[in-house]
């Protein structure tokens, strides 16, 4: 626990909010008090929110107001600060106080040195050619190799950019069905993971450096005994295994050593899904969803856009069914039932908040309505209004064979079985969902569990334990107490120490880091990163791919294949030989050619798991209420339900040392560098909490977690969400000791606990969220529409107004009919309608103000060939952050740390703003909107005019160039930017001392130093590369030839980049959409980045304002207007 007591600020509701300067001073004092703690604890006066006032305010606004945060709704001084100033007041002051004398001295010195800076001699450099140049290497040009990242066991297919022998950037593998060219945020960030200087560098035996050879010798020494005992006493612990080679090796070992045990554990697992399939079908089958066939989707506690294996593909398929930019006559509809806000919930058209433990009841009620034979028909009315459930059931029934019900992997087996039953009843099997043979390895009838391993360890039955990957000492559920079991078996520490001889003779751990688990093991073996090792893995649908290394292991890392090969008596083999020998008999045709093709393409052709016609053994067995030893304490007043989820950034803790992911604002909470206990408004009020209050959460079985509270809209009442992955004791320089450890409360079967006692501790913790940073002030920053209002000449809001107008006029007319006089009002005139349309669209080219003090740039096709522009589709954006990390990797963007983030100094060129809209749900269940904001590349850019040294200039293609070497750091440009997209290097954030991190930098982009402004460049290095290629061939750059890093990474293709002067380009087509609008168009700066309004597709009968909606069943026609 690294929570810091700050008893000095109890914070009463009536306490005046302190000024930031006072706050900073208070922070200084506090810092002094806890010297050495090393954490910034500037308490930014977390205000007590008047939630009722906010609710009233949103009610008055009629649900039409978009808001970013509770601070904005409360209009706190902190929020005003972020809106009105480039950086909040306290952030602009120096970190250390400077007296007048020192200040003058520094001023004089900087004046004297100002000119001298340019006189530095360029150092003499060496140029070192190859001795023998490898084939295919073009000096200074990138090469691309297909590989795959195993994440949570499943393969994420990639295409990795390599420059001069070092991988620097990942993209998705366009030929692989699990990627289609896109990536997840984790794959993007894995590049930093490979160059992480904290990775383990040597073999360590009982605390001393040793060699791989010695380990092999020791393990081989035990082989004879193992053979004699048929493997009794041998246990192998892995994470989820989908690798065909590793699966075959395990199969082989379990044949040689029939008494050996294979266990598998990872915190985010699919055991419940497997058990659910077994219950429903009588066999282990993996569901593969086809969102591209589904018109109606119901997701229950299932973030299929982010958390499932295959989410990247699912997100693409899902969004392709709801893109409303081309001529499209239909749009899918997503219903979500969930306990805590997820990306699926944010993308949904209807969302109900139900505690995770009650999801099964909702499913059962729904199943009963759909005619599935269920155990009992509970009343879910208190969870979801009966009318809503009826509409939902009707909508599903009317889309038989084209709807889909998905349940989260965390839900109990019974819920999965129910979902299978519903999908079957709706005729979806084979259409929107397929059941395939298990993708995960099933050697020896499938792996045992961690709990079984722990009890075997406790009983002294394990002599040799190989832990391949994973980190069970940290991430085992506290209930299992794997650490205690391991310590007991090792005969170290704990109460059992006395006299107990060690039963475990050899415990070896293969891991990327020398972490919590390695610390206990006899042997620690450094594991090769996936970018430096051979291997294979299956994707979500079973498609196998070969993992090929991009670089030789930096630290001599080994693979799980090699460890198991030692047991197989094949210790001399390399991972390449092992993987190749597995595939040799399995590829058809000439092996050499087939193998080359597999490696080149990144996938084994036709290796998708076979689709099975499932049997049907479904009998509904409701999950027994596990009261966790505290029977009868049902819903006491001070209890909540605890829901434990993987962290959207560091996942289960495996990325804890990845600074990119740590500094990445979490999609919905926008918190950085921490995990928090998420609480909804009702619970927040009930327990009289304020943000940052540390609460203690005690489970019925007596386990306790202390965590700081964070208020979030959309949370189910009475549910507190904890995130895994933090509170690491030994993660590395970045990840050690931040946040709290939620594994303390994690149960074994399902990741939620009921009847958890919540108590305030009186402590405070400083959490940093970036949701108010870079706030824009203006009209209609976010725009949205409903699908059924699209065919109308003016959007839904306008229509509503017009109808009110008409009704009013009619009433007036009726009243005044006989009195004559006033001219009857016939509703809005044509001109008024036109104006409304214009307003919905923002300012179109023709309607833009023509009077301008800006230079009159000529961008006609005659003058310049390319007029770059970006279009961002807010309907497609799911807020997954992949673009943000892709941009960071591509453009050498530094990280700044939590303290700097708190001052609004994070450096991401591309940010994703998250907005809420009240619409009926108020602050309790609002709609969520995502808006990625890069540089707008204004044609009349306000930043350019104020730069005193012309460091930011306009170029012929209309790009807003930023020249680092001219920049003197006045920050005028940033102050003048209405979109707040410019980032300033307050410190030398990229000062790299570790040689491996130097290798990470993209050589095509300048590494910026202190005192320099930077911003999104539309990936000008990619434009330049395409331009040079095109110019060499004397042709124009083709549409789609330049793909910005964010665009390439985006799983849903929400970002389009292209040439406005090419009338056939995709971006031009999107611009013609009536949904097209510009941010802050009223400023007339003519931004090149524009947006497509978000389109939602609520059910007509469930719409809050259903009165105004058109008749259900009428399919709206929609044709893009040509301008």
């Amino acid at each position, binding site marked *: 626990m690294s929570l810091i007591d700050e008893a000095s600020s109890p914070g009463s509701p009536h306490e005046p909010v302190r000024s930031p300067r006072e706050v900073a001073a208070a922070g200084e004092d506090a810092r002094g008090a806890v010297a050495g703690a090393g954490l910034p604890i500037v308490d930014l006066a977390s205000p007590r929110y008047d939630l009722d006032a906010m609710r009233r305010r949103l009610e008055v606004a009629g649900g039409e107001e978009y808001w970013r945060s509770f601070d904005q709704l409360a209009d706190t001084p902190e929020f005003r600060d972020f809106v009105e100033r480039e950086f909040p007041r306290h952030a602009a002051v120096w970190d250390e106080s400077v007296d007048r004398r020192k200040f003058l001295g520094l001023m004089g010195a900087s004046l004297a040195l100002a000119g001298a800076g340019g006189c530095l001699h360029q150092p003499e450099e060496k140029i070192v050619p*190859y001795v023998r*140049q490898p084939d295919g290497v073009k000096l200074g040009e990138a090469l691309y190799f297909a590989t795959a990242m195993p994440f949570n066991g499943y393969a994420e297919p990639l295409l990795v950019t390599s420059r001069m022998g070092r991988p620097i950037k990942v993209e998705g593998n366009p030929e692989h069905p699990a990627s289609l060219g896109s990536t997840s945020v984790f794959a993007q960030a894995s590049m930093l993971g490979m160059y992480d200087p904290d990775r383990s560098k040597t073999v360590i035996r009982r605390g001393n450096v040793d060699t791989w050879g010695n380990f092999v010798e020791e393990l081989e020494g035990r082989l004879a005994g193992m053979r004699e005992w048929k493997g009794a006493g041998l246990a192998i612990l892995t994470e989820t295994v989908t690798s065909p080679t590793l699966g075959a090796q395990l199969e082989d070992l379990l044949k040689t050593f029939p008494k050996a045990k294979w266990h598998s554990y990872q915190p985010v697992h699919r055991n419940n899904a497997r058990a659910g399939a077994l219950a429903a079908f009588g066999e282990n089958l993996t569901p593969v969803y086809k969102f591209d066939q589904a018109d109606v989707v119901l997701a229950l506690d299932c973030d299929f856009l982010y958390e499932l294996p295959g989410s990247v593909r699912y997100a693409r398929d899902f969004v392709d069914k709801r893109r409303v930019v081309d001529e499209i006559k239909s749009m899918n509809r997503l219903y979500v039932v969930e306990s805590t806000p997820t990306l699926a919930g944010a993308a949904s058209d209807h969302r109900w908040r139900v505690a995770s433990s009650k999801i099964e009841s909702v499913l059962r009620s729904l199943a009963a309505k759909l005619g599935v034979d269920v155990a009992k028909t509970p009343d879910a009315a208190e969870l979801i209004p009966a009318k809503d459930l009826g509409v939902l059931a009707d909508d599903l029934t009317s889309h038989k064979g084209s709807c889909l019900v998905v349940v989260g992997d965390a839900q109990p087996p019974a819920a999965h079985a129910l979902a299978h039953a519903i999908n079957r009843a709706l005729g979806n099997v084979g259409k929107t969902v397929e059941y395939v043979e298990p993708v995960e390895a099933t050697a020896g009838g499938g792996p045992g569990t961690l709990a079984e391993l722990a009890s075997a360890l406790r009983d002294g039955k394990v002599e040799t334990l190989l832990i391949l990957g994973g980190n069970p000492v940290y991430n085992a559920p506290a209930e299992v107490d794997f650490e205690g079991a391991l310590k007991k078996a090792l005969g170290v520490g704990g109460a059992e120490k006395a006299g107990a001889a060690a039963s475990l003779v050899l415990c070896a751990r293969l891991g990327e880091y020398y972490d919590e688990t390695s610390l206990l093991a006899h042997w620690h073996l450094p594991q090769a990163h996936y970018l430096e090792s051979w291997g294979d893995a299956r994707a979500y649908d079973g498609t196998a791919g070969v993992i090929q290394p991009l670089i030789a292991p930096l630290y001599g890392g080994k693979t799980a294949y090699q460890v198991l090969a030692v047991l197989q008596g094949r210790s001399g083999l390399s991972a390449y030989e092992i993987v190749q020998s597995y595939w040799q008999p399995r590829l058809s045709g000439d092996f050499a050619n087939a193998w080359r093709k597999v490696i080149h393409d990144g996938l084994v052709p036709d290796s998708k798991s076979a689709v099975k016609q499932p049997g049907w053994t479904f009998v509904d067995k409701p999950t027994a209420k596990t009261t966790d030893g505290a029977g009868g304490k049902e819903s006491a007043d001070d209890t909540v339900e605890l829901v434990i989820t993987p962290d959207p950034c560091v996942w289960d803790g495996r990325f804890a040392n990845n600074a990119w992911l740590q500094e990445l604002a979490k999609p919905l909470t926008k918190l950085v560098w921490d995990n928090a206990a998420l609480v909804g408004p009702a619970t927040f009020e009930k327990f009289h909490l304020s943000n940052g209050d540390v609460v203690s959460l005690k489970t019925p079985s007596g386990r306790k977690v202390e965590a700081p509270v964070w208020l979030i809209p959309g949370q189910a009442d009475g549910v507190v969400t904890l995130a895994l992955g933090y509170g690491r004791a030994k993660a590395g320089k970045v990840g050690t000791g931040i946040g709290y450890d939620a594994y303390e409360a994690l149960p074994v079967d399902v990741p939620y606990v009921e009847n958890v006692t919540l108590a305030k501790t009186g402590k405070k913790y400083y959490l940093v969220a970036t949701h108010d940073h870079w706030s824009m002030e203006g009209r209609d920053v976010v725009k949205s529409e409903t699908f059924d209002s699209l065919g109308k000449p003016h959007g839904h809001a306008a229509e509503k107004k017009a109808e009110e107008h008409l009704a009013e006029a009619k009433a007036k007319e009726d009243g005044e009919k006989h009195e004559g006089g006033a001219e009857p009002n016939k509703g809005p005139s044509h001109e008024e309608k036109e104006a409304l349309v214009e307003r919905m669209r923002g300012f179109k080219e023709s309607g833009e103000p023509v009077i301008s003090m800006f230079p009159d740039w000529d961008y006609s096709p005659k003058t310049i060939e390319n007029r770059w522009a970006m279009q961002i589709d807010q309907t497609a954006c799911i807020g997954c952050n992949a673009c943000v990390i892709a941009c960071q990797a591509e453009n050498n963007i530094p990280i700044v740390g939590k303290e700097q983030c708190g001052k609004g100094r994070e450096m991401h060129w591309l940010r994703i703003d998250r907005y809420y809209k009240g619409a009926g749900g108020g602050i309790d269940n609002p709609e969520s909107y995502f808006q990625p904001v890069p540089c707008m590349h204004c044609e009349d850019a306000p930043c350019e005019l104020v730069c005193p040294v012309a460091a930011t200039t306009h*170029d012929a293609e209309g790009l807003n160039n930023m020249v680092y070497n001219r920049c003197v750091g006045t920050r005028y440009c940033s102050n003048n930017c209405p979109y707040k997209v410019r980032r300033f290097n307050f410190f030398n954030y990229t000062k790299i001392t570790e040689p491996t991190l130097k290798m990470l930098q993209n050589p095509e982009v300048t590494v910026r130093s202190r005192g320099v402004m930077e911003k999104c460049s539309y990936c000008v290095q990619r434009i330049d590369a395409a331009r040079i290629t095109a110019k060499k061939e004397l042709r124009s750059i083709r549409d789609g030839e330049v793909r910005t890093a964010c665009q390439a990474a985006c799983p849903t293709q929400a970002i389009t980049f292209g040439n406005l002067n090419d009338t056939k380009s995709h971006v031009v087509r999107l611009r013609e959409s009536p949904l097209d609008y510009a941010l802050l168009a009223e400023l007339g700066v003519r931004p090149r980045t524009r947006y497509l309004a978000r389109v939602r597709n609520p059910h007509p009968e469930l719409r809050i304002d259903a009165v105004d909606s058109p008749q259900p069943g009428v399919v709206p026609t929609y044709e893009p207007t040509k301008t």
Partner: protein
Amino acid sequence: MAQLFHPIANAYAKGSILFGGVLAGGLLFLGWAHERSAYVTSQNVVRDQPVPFSHNHHVSGLGLDCRYCHLSVEKAGFAGIPPTQVCYGCHQIIWKDVKMLEPVRASYKTGEPIAWNRVHDVPDFVYFNHSIHIAKGIGCESCHGPVNQMPLIRKAKTLQMDFCLDCHRNPEKNIREKEDVFKFGVTPVSAERAKELVDERKIVKKQLDNCWVCHR
């Protein structure tokens, strides 16, 4: 009261004002001259190399084409410094025992590359691409000077920004016929032909002096 200053003080005052002006101007000039001097630009400075390679001998004497050694000059941003393999290809047969070439033989045998001292080295924030210049018909000679006459390589031009801009704003000055790109001592094309070539090769002059063409 007596005069504090002798009348000559006026002359001193005027003189020192004048001198001050001259001094300031002189300092500025010195600064400018310093920046332009070979001390800063390394123009025409010969650097010691592990092997005293003579372009003069290999190009003028033997008639080797630039591309024989600078393999990727037409294809990639880097022109490419020849791998040891290329040197050794000939020098395992000719001059195979000469002491001067010992580093080449050693490199080939040990696999340890030869570390040359870089002569043409633009700053790291300049992204120069050879291939596009070759494709548009800018001769090697335009930036590298008469390499065929250099016994030891040196930087013939300053390679400072004004040198680049000079041509980027007026490419007609240096543009050549395709077949002349790798030749030395070529007579410049006529002004009309230069204009023609610029149009033919679709060189967009208004774009060439944009910052992001070279910096990013």
